[in-house]
């Protein structure tokens, strides 16, 4: 028996690590990976709450989060490739205009 709060604390810590990575990283790909880490933390709390309340819908929502994350990763990495093609850098400090 593991208390539900342990799962929630683990998910919160993973989310916090994702936020820290988003803030301190300067490589655009690593920033993107931090976003994925945040999504993973949220998924864990979804599954933990689904088990706690015996609601299978929580696990279905994890499925939807994964699909959206996969689509987001596809488009985001394509944008990264497009940015690199025009700027020839991956450092976000040098990518400060919205236009390509």
């Amino acid at each position, binding site marked *: 028996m593991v208390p539900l709060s342990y799962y929630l604390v683990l998910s919160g810590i993973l989310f916090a690590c994702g936020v820290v990575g988003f803030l301190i990283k300067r490589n655009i790909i690593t920033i993107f990976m931090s976003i994925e880490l945040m999504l*993973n933390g949220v998924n864990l709390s979804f599954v933990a709450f689904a088990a706690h309340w015996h609601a299978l819908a929580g696990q279905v929502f994890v*499925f939807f989060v*994964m699909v959206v994350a996969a689509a987001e990763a596809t488009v985001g990495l394509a944008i990264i490739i497009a940015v690199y093609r025009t700027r020839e850098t991956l450092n976000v400090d040098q990518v400060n205009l919205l236009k390509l």
Partner: protein
Amino acid sequence: MSVHLVLFLAFAAVALAGAINLLAQTHPINSALSLIAVMAALAGEYLLLGAEFVAALQVIVYAGAVMVLFVFVIMLLNAGVEERTKGSRVAILFGVPGTLLGGVLIAWVLLRHSGTGDVPAGALPGAPATIGPLLFHEFLLPFEITSILILIAIMGAVVLASKPPSAPVPPREGN
């Protein structure tokens, strides 16, 4: 200490070590590998909770497909070690203590006031046979909408990543 708790702590330790290693590494490929470790450990946590279908998806979709995409892009763009800049030092100065404070606060509140009970091992068996009817009856409309979303994502990726047809513009000077 039950076996369940020991397994939970082991997977949690792997996940946390991976997450912190993701922050500590400067080369993107090392960060990607530690993110794969985090995802594999989370799949173990899902198995502990009984969510078999989600655990399988976590390994196949996240640790498999999405991270292969990341590694492909890292190799394609030949991403090197990231350099520290003035902006990143300011971000470390304010971001790390602020987020640590927030994390400790959330953990304290959850541990102290959550008032929620224990979760037994395999609490809610989520085998594909039980997820499937739910997915194709109650959540049929969102399921179909995700297929449209994926179609849009495929087309967007092709459009964004394809080479422009005209002569390429010279790279702008860094500003």
